[in-house]
């Protein structure tokens, strides 16, 4: 079947200091799901933004259903039946869910917006997609995962022929991801073509038909999903062999003592009675479903959410952490999950972002910032984390999503913490870089740092952590050994015994 719906030929795009795309081709058939794969900064988002009309290409041609088209703006793309879920959340925080979904295509009655109809349309859409969010809720009050689901629903609301999904699952937990996959197969069976971008191999193998790989803005090749392996794909992406995805950690902790401990931490409505500890060199995993309260616990530890009761000890001695400042003073670092809103100063340069949590170390004896030292630190982090940027001065909003995430990590690594909390640290990061980050985590652990990692990526958390705490309904419900546990066991704890069977189909442990 050669029912080609989309053809991109020789697409070029140049940004100041960066060749983002140098002549890339892409072909997509009706009802086909194409995975777009590549390292951070390879040009995936750029290629898709050209297709969706938000960037103008510097060269190349686009054909839709065999007809050459010019996509000059977002509306052209919409009219051609192209719909996109952007990598960065792009909802209006001030508007309701329904208002966001039908933004710029509101139903009207007598020339006025018909709110009731809009809400019922949203509800109908949500029912169809099995999404459980109140259409009247204001978006800024939703968790990121719910925001991401709204974003997905919004892209689907136009009944497009081509759907582009740029890392849609990076903000979703496994339950939502499952939901999304159901939606994808439904639309696929109806003939909708899709481009799916993700750094999670298992997702790509689960839902895509063909895989196209980009490297440094160049087209590397296309393979059929059924006929390839993740080793081959990684080689295509990275340009070299990578024999393992998770580096080996040959110790579980460096000293058998409690480096960091919280006792009976409670913040009403957010988390209750949390007791946890980390040993030097230990990596503690926190797993739970969306909304289970993992992020809140981390925020409670870091003093962003003020706890109602409970105490914290470092090296067995009680310490008071009431705000981020005192947390940092006590050598605690916290990589937040929402890089755009909580982590980065998008309008500032790479160096300003990397040093911002650690400015005191830059002071000379005249209490001025040591610019040279700042540049050295930045260059070192750029090397260590392989951050792709034309210069240390580049403003962060010009970097690819994954590279932005690396900068958030670099910022906290730079504070040389004793306790490092990571909330979804590899969100949007490519396999190669993930490996580097795991390695850096292990290196830190080897030096005696205690690490707490929160992740919705089950394989990741099972492979990376030494000990695993399961969170549900804002409480710790189980402590497990990740080496010996299974997804079924975890889900049993979360769902409760009666529900086991309903979850069985989800388990697929590697």
């Amino acid at each position: 079947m050669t029912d080609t719906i989309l053809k991109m030929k020789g697409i070029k795009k140049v940004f100041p200091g960066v060749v983002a795309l140098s002549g890339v081709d892409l072909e997509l058939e009706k009802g086909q799901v194409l995975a777009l794969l590549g390292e951070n900064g390879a040009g995936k988002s750029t290629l898709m933004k050209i297709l969706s009309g938000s960037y103008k290409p510097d060269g190349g041609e686009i054909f839709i259903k065999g007809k050459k088209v010019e996509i000059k703006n977002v509306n052209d793309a919409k009219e051609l039946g192209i719909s996109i879920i952007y990598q960065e959340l792009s909802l209006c925080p001030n508007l309701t869910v329904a208002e966001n979904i039908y933004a710029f295509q509101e139903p009207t009655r007598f020339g006025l917006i018909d709110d009731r109809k809009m809400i019922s349309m949203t509800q109908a859409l949500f029912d169809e997609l099995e999404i459980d969010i109140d259409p009247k809720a204001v978006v800024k009050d939703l968790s990121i995962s719910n925001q991401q689901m709204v974003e997905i629903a919004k892209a689907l609301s136009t009944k497009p022929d081509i759907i582009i999904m740029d890392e849609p699952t990076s903000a979703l937990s496994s339950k939502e991801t499952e939901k999304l996959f159901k939606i994808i197969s439904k639309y696929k069976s109806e003939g909708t073509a899709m481009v799916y971008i993700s750094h999670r191999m298992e997702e790509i193998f689960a839902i895509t038909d063909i895989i196209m790989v980009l490297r440094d803005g160049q087209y590397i090749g296309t393979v059929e999903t059924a006929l390839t392996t993740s080793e081959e794909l990684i080689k295509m992406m990275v340009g070299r062999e990578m024999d393992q995805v998770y580096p080996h950690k040959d110790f579980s902790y460096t000293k058998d003592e409690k480096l960091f401990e919280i006792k009976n931490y409670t913040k009403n409505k957010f988390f209750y009675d949390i007791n946890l500890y980390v040993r030097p060199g230990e990596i503690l995993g926190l797993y739970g479903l969306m909304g289970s309260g993992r992020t809140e616990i981390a925020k409670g530890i870091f003093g962003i959410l003020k706890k109602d009761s409970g105490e914290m000890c470092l090296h067995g001695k009680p310490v008071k952490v009431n705000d981020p400042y005192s947390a940092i003073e006590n050598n605690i670092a916290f990589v937040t999950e929402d890089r755009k809103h909580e982590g980065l100063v998008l309008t500032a340069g790479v160096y300003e972002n990397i040093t911002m949590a650690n400015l005191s170390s830059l002071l000379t004896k005249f209490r001025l910032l040591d610019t040279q030292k700042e540049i050295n630190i930045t260059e070192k982090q750029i090397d260590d984390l392989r951050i792709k940027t034309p210069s240390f001065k580049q403003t962060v909003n010009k970097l690819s999503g994954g590279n932005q995430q690396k900068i958030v990590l670099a910022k906290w690594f730079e504070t040389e913490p004793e306790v490092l909390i990571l909330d979804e640290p590899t969100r949007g990061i490519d396999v190669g870089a993930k490996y580097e980050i795991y390695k850096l985590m292990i290196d830190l652990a080897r030096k005696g740092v205690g690490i707490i990692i929160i992740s919705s990526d089950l394989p990741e958390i099972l492979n990376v952590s030494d000990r695993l705490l399961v969170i549900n309904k804002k409480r710790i419900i189980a402590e497990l050994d990740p080496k010996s546990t299974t997804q079924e066991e975890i889900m049993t704890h979360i769902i409760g015994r009666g529900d086991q069977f309903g979850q069985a189909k989800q388990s697929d442990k590697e």
Partner: protein
Amino acid sequence: MEEVINLDKLSNLIKNRKIAKSYNGVFLALIGLIILFSFLSPHFLQTNNLLTILAQVSIIAILAYGMTFVLMIGEIDLSVGSIVALCGIVLGVMLSSGQSAFVSIVIVLVVGALAGLLNGMISAKFRIPTFIVTVATMGIFRGIGYAITDARPIQIDNPFILYLGNGKIFDLIPVPVVIVLLLLIIAHVVLSKTKFGRQAKIVGGNRVAAEYVGINIKRLQMKIFMITGLAAAVSSILLSARLYSAQPNVAVGYELDAIAATVLGGTSLSGGYGTVIGTFIGALIMGVINNGMNLIGMPYFYQQIVKGLIIIIAVYIDVRNKERLLAK
């Protein structure tokens, strides 16, 4: 004292959630002020005085309606005072050159809209911050007004125009009050019920998202500045009538009053949030303060100080109220 309004009724209004809504806090502040001044001056709560306040407030309120749209998209317009002056001059010139009231009004509205459009266009096309553009046109528009008349006032004696500014319906309700309430409804519907108003909210809430859904931000911005221009033109007609003359030196500093009323009414300076009704309440607060202090004969210097304090307290009540609602 039969014309005095019942205080109990007012406090019932406060309790009525449906009316108060998001501007609950400012509304509360307004009621507080009304109660305060009704104790301080026996003249304050007279129907006649309340209508006077509404009429006095009309000019700033209409400007502030327009300002609500501009602030909604996260921009600012400092030139509205000057547009009022310029439009007044145009009105005066038209009328004194023998044009009918109708033709003159149409031309004034066109001039106001064009002035606003110019602001929007310069800023959109040349990518210059609206603060700078409107600081500049603030001088330009007023300068043109001066140049046209050589700084001399033009008398306004057209009976219809004078009626608009000074007439009373049923010998009781000032015409400006009717106009300001009518425009309140229109502006409210446009902002909260039309696609256009919704686009403004989208742009103010998240510019990138607005671009992604295909909103032509530049065009929207031009339209919105046209609205402030139009609002300024309407204000200028009422003001000229009220002053029985058109002069280039009127409405100096009204931009700040309009912005203050708007922000007082809960509109965010950084865009995305706000209601025209809140703005109207904000303008009323300013009007009540001015009128009340005049009535009790407070010395001028203290008026300035007290006004400042009241504004701060009013906003604080609003902030507290919002936080209380959120905490629930």
